[in-house]
């Protein structure tokens, strides 16, 4: 962590080559490509967790996380529809919350509560901009409060940019109309959640968006993460019959 009186710098210490080495190290340790991007991002930026969301239509979809806890938090952020990721995506600008425990803050109160319960104290969202298009967000989570230095901001934006172009590179090599295999596995829980939404839409006789809302509402009401609820639906332990 940088001390407050450290001089601000325009550019960070990180360069593409160093980040790529960190990604390679994570891959060598057995992580899949997308997880490696996030985990390496957390390594070089000295953060607790990193996640990448990409836009799918008007919505964001989590495609990669550094670890399972970050995946749960991202799912929560998507479910609540509030948090730095949404702001960063909407405004295409970096969104900072240096202290989620700050009582004076009024933004994303629900996300704040969940993040703190998960041990996260600060959250930052960086737009992933490729070729002038904002294609998603890089989310950074840290277990201690404190603003990012200018150098850290520059570093995180570099991680966001490189991750974005890496993912586009994967997609460019993928067969037409299919998602790049590198983006299939990580991000954790979304496959299960979408399958569960499909089941719930039949059980409750509602459209898919309402089915997703029912899953969210149930998770929220019972203090569960979306993935748990979805798993219960898929195993048949939970049904939404009308």
């Amino acid at each position, binding site marked *: 962590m940088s001390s407050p009186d450290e001089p601000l710098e325009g550019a960070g210490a990180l360069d593409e080559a160093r980040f790529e080495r960190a990604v390679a190290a994570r891959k060598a340790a057995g992580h899949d490509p997308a997880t490696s991007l996030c985990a390496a991002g957390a390594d070089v930026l000295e953060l607790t967790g990193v996640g990448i969301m*990409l*836009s*799918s*239509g008007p919505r964001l*979809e989590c*495609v990669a996380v550094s670890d399972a806890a970050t995946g749960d938090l991202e799912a929560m952020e998507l479910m609540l529809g509030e948090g730095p990721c949404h702001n960063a995506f909407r405004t295409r600008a970096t969104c900072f919350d240096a202290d989620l425990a700050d009582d004076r803050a009024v933004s994303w109160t629900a996300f704040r509560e969940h993040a703190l319960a998960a041990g996260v104290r600060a959250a930052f969202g960086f737009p992933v901009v*490729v*070729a*002038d*298009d904002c*294609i998603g967000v890089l989310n950074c989570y840290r277990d201690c409060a404190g603003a990012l230095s200018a150098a850290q901001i520059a570093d995180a934006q570099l991680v966001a940019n490189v991750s974005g*172009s890496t*993912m*586009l590179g994967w*997609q*460019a090599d*993928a067969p*037409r*109309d*299919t*998602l*790049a295999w590198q*983006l*299939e596995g990580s991000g954790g829980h*979304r*496959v299960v959640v*979408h*399958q*569960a*939404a*499909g*089941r*719930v*839409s*039949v*059980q409750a006789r509602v*459209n*898919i968006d309402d089915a997703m809302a029912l899953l969210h509402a149930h998770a929220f009401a019972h203090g569960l993460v979306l993935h748990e609820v979805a798993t219960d639906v*898929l195993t048949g332990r939970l049904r939404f019959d009308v």
Partner: protein
Amino acid sequence: MPKEREVLRALVEFADTFVDDYDVVDFLHRLTARCVTLLDVDEAGVMLVDADRTLRYVASSSERMRMVELLELQHEEGPCLEAYRGGQLSSSTTAREADERWPQFGSHAREAGFESLAGIPMRLRVNVIGALNLFSRRPGGLTDDDREIAQAMADVATIGLLQERAVRDGQIVAGQLQTALESRIAIEQAKGILAENMTVSVDDAFTLLRNHARTHNLKLTETALRVVSGVLPAASLGLSGRTTPS
């Protein structure tokens, strides 16, 4: 010398063009017009390579030049093609030299009244994206100064064009990524819907979905979207798609 200032102004103007969205063809027409005013040449033209690595006509300083360039492409010989293939300047200083080097194209150039022909590669490091043609009615070829200026203009234009291509390619893939992601979501949702409706596993549900798509010559994504929106009832997939009893 005012020419230096003019050259500088032209280069700054080109560099300025690249800041915002710009029209590539319009920019290249301006480049050819600038070449004619700044250099001791009568006509200028640009050819660029397209996605399938074929050189194509893009811009010229006049209609007559356009015709000559098209003939150059048609006969697959001439200074522009040589500059593109070799990545370096290709020039002839008399009509006779052109005739000897490019038997078919040379006579067309001569008939159009050109004596000196030069092709300047448009290149950034190993990446050659096309060539700039500079033709003159007088023999003798480009002066050393003009050659340097022409290469500088070609270099600036190349950087701008590559940048524009990178942006455009990136946007295309970004769009494909978004579509693929949406498709992925729709397929998972459809699997859930079918699994629930048909009382089968999600894997079997996927088989039903895929079989229906194949049988009806539909894309998998399209089939999934129809299931999700309710246009395609789950029951109709069971009949056509079930190949193995479950």
